[in-house]
């Protein structure tokens, strides 16, 4: 890899990847109950996407 790649420095990329690794490890170590609460909210978000609230135009 060159020192500069499309304007993104190697150092920035390394920092971002390290942050991502740390965050992944932190999430993996969460309690199971906490993970299931996150899944609950992801399922809820998915339901909102599947069933958008349709607002009908009020007839004048």
């Amino acid at each position, binding site marked *: 890899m060159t020192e500069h790649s499309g304007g993104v420095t190697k150092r920035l990329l390394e920092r971002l990847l390290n942050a991502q690794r740390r965050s992944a490890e932190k999430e*993996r170590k*969460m309690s*199971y109950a906490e993970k*299931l609460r996150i*899944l609950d909210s992801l399922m*809820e978000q998915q*339901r909102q996407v599947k069933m958008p609230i349709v607002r009908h135009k009020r007839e004048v």
Partner: protein
Amino acid sequence: MAIADVLRIFQELKRDRAVRDYILFGSVAAMAHTRPFYTRDVDIGVVVASDKEFLALFNRLTTIGRVAGHAIVIGCTPVELFPVDISPIIQDALGHALRRRVAGVFVKVAPPEHLLLEALRVYCSQDKARVFLLDDVVDRQKLQDLFRRLDHDGTLRRRYEALTGETA
């Protein structure tokens, strides 16, 4: 009603002897070992002695929730129910299950090695993706033991090697 509430219902069903035992499987179980991620439903393997017992359990759950496709939606949570003997891997997992506490309820969760093997058995796109997640957290020795014990014709080992490029 959240996943924790579903688990509370299953605890009550066990207390009432409507189900002999149960174990979390699939993606929801995988999450005990990996990062949290989205999945459509909660897979629960149940121990029942006969079709009659399974039907009675299924019917009882439909009085709490409603059937939608292959799942029973309890509150807002789709639950896929299956007898553990549907797969020798799930049946074996019951004897090696880990216990996790969720909102005051202890639940049996399949170990990551069993989950990886079952994902290789089912081998749909969603299961293939789960193999990669679980591959980071499995105990290599335990995985090898499982391949030896439960993969009699070597199909799962071949799938594992094709998918990950690693030697099982």
